[in-house]
């Protein structure tokens, strides 16, 4: 049979889109599902067509040709709730830095999707340590930083890796905005940073009230309108207790449910956070205490949040120098070593962020029907000397 080159191309394209993949069975001595099945000793996870087909505590029938993987411990793929991996490159030269737009301190119209580089080597790096989903935020410098997005950590095309675009708007308070913009007409004080944010939100409120047919299309206003209407979440970077207080104040003024980014001193303002219904995107406790606002970082932060019943998720955060990224596995590990219950820690790196970002139908736990994003370990996942044996994303072994 003669196949035309055009037809061959079509076939090739089809095979690229739908890779023929054998089913995989994972046998785990211990499985943390982060789902209703809880923790299973000796678990069997059947994966096919990129999805979890079944999770069982007893042996199951498997199709012929099924690939079998074994592991001491299996976790759901980890979700980093705040990282700049993909837009803040490892080389740290202007050619690979696309997180910080310095021309505009109030850049609500920016979308990290348009900066995201799937070939960035830090993506592969965090993936090797079990991070399968990243919530990528812009930089911590501009009072209004732009819109965030969630990606899987495997793929060649940003749009294909995308789980959710415009998930949240990033507002930044504290030291960074005033130091970054002081010499270029931006805010030079904390009160000016707050005023910029407040001013833009008021403008957006007015813009929303204008007749849709008559008002000028304005991407920044539209993005902030989406925040005000609740379509997009509002994240406030704040380390110091008073900056967290400012975030809560602004959120109250505009009826927003605040997500506190870093919250280095959140443990000093627990009652107020609880009252506001805030969630804390935890500071990477291994961050360098550069700047006074990070001085009071404590390794026990997550345990304290848990004790106070304040919801929290783990994150790698932003690094301006060596090393260029923090690894979620280690942030979770250090929290466990400093008083946080292990299972709660796992949840704060899997299902809790999946729910927070509205992607829990797809990821965040090992349950039938969800994406087959899993991490296989040859021992205690958090112990320093353990190894990641394999990482699966959409059923494909990517490490």
């Amino acid at each position, binding site marked *: 049979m003669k196949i035309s080159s055009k037809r061959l191309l079509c076939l090739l394209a089809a095979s690229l889109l739908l890779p023929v993949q054998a089913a995989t069975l994972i046998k785990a001595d211990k499985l943390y599902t982060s789902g209703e099945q809880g923790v299973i000793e000796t678990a069997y996870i059947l994966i096919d067509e990129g999805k979890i087909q079944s999770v069982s505590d007893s042996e199951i029938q498997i199709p012929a040709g099924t690939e079998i993987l074994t592991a001491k411990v299996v976790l759901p793929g980890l979700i980093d709730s705040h990282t700049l991996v993909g837009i803040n490159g490892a*080389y740290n030269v202007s050619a690979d830095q696309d997180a910080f737009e310095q021309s505009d301190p109030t850049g609500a119209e920016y979308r990290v999707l348009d900066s995201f580089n799937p070939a960035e*080597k830090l993506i592969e790096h965090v993936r090797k340590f079990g991070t399968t989903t990243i919530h990528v935020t812009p930089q911590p410098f501009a009072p209004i930083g732009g819109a965030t997005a969630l990606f899987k950590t495997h793929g060649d095309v940003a749009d294909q890796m995308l789980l959710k675009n415009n998930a949240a708007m990033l507002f930044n308070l504290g030291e960074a905005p005033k130091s970054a913009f002081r010499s270029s007409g931006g805010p030079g004080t904390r009160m000016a940073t707050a005023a910029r944010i407040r001013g833009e939100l008021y403008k957006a409120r007015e813009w929303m009230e204008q007749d849709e047919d008559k008002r000028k299309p304005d991407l920044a206003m539209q993005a902030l309108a989406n925040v005000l209407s609740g379509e997009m979440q509002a994240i406030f970077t704040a380390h110091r207790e008073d900056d967290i207080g400012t975030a809560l104040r602004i959120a109250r003024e505009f009826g927003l449910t605040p997500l506190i980014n870093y919250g280095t001193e959140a443990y000093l303002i627990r009652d107020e956070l609880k009252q506001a219904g805030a969630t804390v995107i935890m500071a990477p406790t*291994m961050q360098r205490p550069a700047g006074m606002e990070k001085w*009071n970082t404590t390794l*026990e932060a997550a345990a304290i949040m848990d004790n106070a019943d304040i919801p929290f998720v783990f994150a790698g955060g932003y690094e301006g120098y060596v090393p260029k990224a923090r*690894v979620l596995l280690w942030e979770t590990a250090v929290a466990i070593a400093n008083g946080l219950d292990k299972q709660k820690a796992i949840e704060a790196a899997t299902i809790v962020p999946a729910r927070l970002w509205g992607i829990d139908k797809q990821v965040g736990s090992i349950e039938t029907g969800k994406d087959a994003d899993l991490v296989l370990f040859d021992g205690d996942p958090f112990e320093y000397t353990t190894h990641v044996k394999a990482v699966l994303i959409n059923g494909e072994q990517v490490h």
Partner: protein
Amino acid sequence: MNTLFSCLRWGALVFGLLSPPLVMAQTVAFTNATLYPITDKVIDNGTLVIRDGKIAAIGSASEVTVPKGAKIVDAKGRIIMPGIVDTHSHLGVAGDHGEGSATLNPELRILDSFWAADPRIKVARAGGITVSNVMPGSGNVIGGQTIYVKLRDGTADEMLVQGSVGGLKMANGENPKGDDKSPNTRMAAAALARQEYYDAIAYGKKRKAAGEDDDAKTPDLDLGLNTLLEVLDGKRIVHHHTHRSDDIMTVLRLQDEFGFRLVLQHGIESYKLAEELAKRDVMVSYILLDSPGGKHEATETRLDGPAQLEKAGLEIALHSDDWVIDSRFLLRAAALAVRGGMSREGALRALTINPAKMLDLDKQLGSLEVGKDADLVLFDGDPLSLYTHVRQTWIDGQKVYDRSNKEQRLYATGGFRVAERYPHLGEEQ
């Protein structure tokens, strides 16, 4: 040097006057301990006796008798290891370690920048560090003179390791390069260093020729070139910041030319030259980073870097470069080296006896041996485990950190600046 020694003597005298002699003469016996001597086999159910700041006896319970009147510390089976020696640290000098006005600064003494009251020194003690090589930064071809300090309480001068000279910090690669100042290329950085050494040699010759008494012929005192003469005489070790394999080779080339004693500091790409470095028996103090990048020369970092160096036969050290790695996490770096394939024993040597050698202090520090300084770390588990905490740190026979003390514990967790408001979780003693 005489001045330095007289300062030290004076410092010691004052210390002796101020502190009750009882403290210095105290004898402490750690019993029921799992002892990691580092230079010898692990001793289960061991006894370690310290007296006057030194190790007086070490062995199994049956071999060592607890002296009468000794204060007994029941280690309850816990592990005791020599204090961690950090070959590369910027404790106490943050903000005052990068002099930007010139790139050749051999006359600068980091001692003059050292803030002995820096609370991060207490943080480091909570991580088991007892001795640090505090250095100028890497933004200069020659950064200045380094100091070897004990992390004990006292003034900067009192903290100096008695009898130590310190090293000389040098750097190549990206950091000493400037866009708008010299050097702005690697070759210029090397040329500047080379010329400075030739200048020092010429200066030394002139001084020698002039003899002791001929003031007319003696060249003007040059503190910088004097320092380089100490380097050329082997009194002062060069601690050379260098990452990329080509930069490492440049350092070795300079060493071939001038014969100075050398510790390669950081050496992120040193694993690429493992065989060459082993052949030359170069001392490598490695930095094990959590992720690649932050700058070009740090992008090739590998978890198995230390393992590759070990495999080639090198005895390496691991350092913090505090605050690139927080001193509290230096032990963790050793654990990660093991994750990368290094032997447990090699990783523990990389925190103790090997760095002691790199500071010329191995006769005094780095292992649990009779006569050595009583610098100890007591753990509540395997030193390389995530779940282990440093319980106590001792320097010169004095306890300088105790996790069971609520206030001191905050130096391990963080939050010491807000101690009164810190929501203590409580913990086992």
